[in-house]
């Protein structure tokens, strides 16, 4: 049986498939890849890929193939990739032989990358998905992060499909586009104006639940909104904590929340938001719902 032995795994290394939508009413958010476009590219490039990928972070990943050979594709962000010590180009499509060691270290950009295989990763389906939800401790390998010593069993080879060679669309350096949020009207006009005029910093506190921002301009300093009724949350919602800290909620968001939400990052820009590293500057630009939907159809960043 072909297996992958995890030699090294940074925090937040998880198994992810396309996600587990449809269970919000049971208190479960969908999880799934932080950079869905990159995840999809690995599948398309491989042609006949397992539904589940290893999502890794800038903390890196090391693994060894044991007991057989397997094809794989890697994409997302820009990482430094080595096979048996030899540095390879990023992104990559590789044929891994029994005993090959893959090592991934951070490169110049991005927080999340994907390793997708020509076989399914043999972990149980939970509510129809293998995606790990760290917040719900569901799916993936025992509902947790991967760590050194884990052994992932691989299923049979997936029937090959025509392999495409998708290129990542340029990430775009413009503002992250948002729709005004459920509670935007509760913020004073001046706060809303400054929210789109000022620049925020991505803080070091980023994970699959959300990205905390640093509000160096003090846009939300003193913005006091108390006791909101808890209501539905969607990925991309920008909530403001009681101390004024903005958080962009991501794939492992809590399904409901009681903090005020000023805006929601549009779906077309959420992958880009996920890949912004701590220290990156971010600005927000409001768009209309029609523009958000047009961006989905176009698939391109601004």
């Amino acid at each position, binding site marked *: 049986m072909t297996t992958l032995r995890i030699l090294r795994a940074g925090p937040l290394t998880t198994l992810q498939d396309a996600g587990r939508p449809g269970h919000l009413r049971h*208190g479960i958010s969908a999880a799934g890849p932080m950079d869905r476009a990159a995840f999809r590219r690995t599948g398309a490039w491989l042609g006949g890929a397992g539904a589940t990928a290893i999502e890794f972070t800038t903390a890196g990943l090391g693994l060894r193939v044991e007991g057989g050979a397997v094809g794989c594709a890697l994409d997302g962000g820009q990482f430094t990739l080595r096979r048996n010590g030899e540095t390879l180009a990023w992104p990559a499509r590789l044929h891994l032989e029994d005993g090959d060691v893959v090592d991934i270290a951070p490169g110049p950009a991005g927080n999340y990358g994907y390793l997708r295989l020509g076989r399914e990763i043999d972990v149980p389906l939970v509510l129809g998905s293998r995606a790990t939800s760290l917040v719900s401790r569901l799916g993936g390998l025992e509902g947790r992060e991967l760590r050194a010593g884990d052994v992932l069993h691989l299923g049979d080879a997936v029937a090959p499909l025509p392999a495409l060679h998708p290129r990542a669309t340029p990430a775009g350096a413009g503002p992250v586009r948002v729709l005004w949020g459920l509670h935007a009207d509760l913020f004073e006009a001046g706060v809303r104006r400054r929210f789109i005029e000022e620049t925020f910093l991505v803080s070091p506190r980023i994970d699959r639940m959300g990205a905390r921002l640093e509000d160096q301009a003090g846009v939300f300093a003193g913005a006091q909104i108390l006791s909101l009724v808890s209501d539905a949350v969607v990925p991309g919602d920008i909530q403001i904590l009681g101390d004024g800290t903005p958080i962009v909620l991501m794939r492992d968001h809590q399904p409901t929340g009681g903090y005020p939400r000023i805006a929601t990052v549009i779906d077309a820009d959420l992958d880009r938001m996920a890949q912004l590293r701590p220290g990156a500057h971010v600005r927000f630009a409001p768009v209309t719902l029609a523009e*958000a939907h047009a961006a989905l159809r176009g698939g391109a960043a601004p």
Partner: protein
Amino acid sequence: MAETPAPVPLPNPLIVPLGDHGLLVRFAATLSDEANRAAITFARRLGERMPEGVTEIDPNLVSVLLKYDPAAIGFERLAGEVRLLLGRAGGAVGGKPKRHRIAARFGGAEGPDLADVARQLGMRPADFIAAHNARPLRVLTTGFAPGFVYCGFHALSVPRRTTVRPVVPPGTILFAAGQTAITATPLPTGWSVIGRTEFCNFDPAIDPPTVLREGDEIVFKAVK
């Protein structure tokens, strides 16, 4: 279905986008019995005739979130269908709600805040437990975490605690803001911890993974 054919009048809701895949039907900006009943009724009505392009219905305390596929239906068209459904019949709670009896241990090591809650209300702990369990509570919604239910409403109310417990186990019974909540997974909480039950409203090996539905009734029974 044992429903009355006449439309159930629902409070006029706010219909707004929540992101670019969500439409939120919100019956009030604050929690009230009427708004919660409206959310439950409307979610059931949607379940009976799900509009095309809708991928998920998520009832909340005072709202219903419809997730939709923008390639299949636009927001304005969906909002129009929602307005039509708001004026129609269906979803009314016909007959008796489903009742769940939940045995729980109150106080002691498993309910460390019981005495403090009773003190805030000027009651003896035993009297608080009796009042807490005196009548059925409605499951207001499931949210926040897997299988986590909000139940209400009590005439008794205490505010949330000023400190957060980093983790409480599944089956913890929480009390705050005129509501009782039951955890189904390990969680941090700022609510008062008043007891514990063996009942767990979450099993990911079963689909659907929860037992309690919004609109069901809960009757707590104190056991040793």
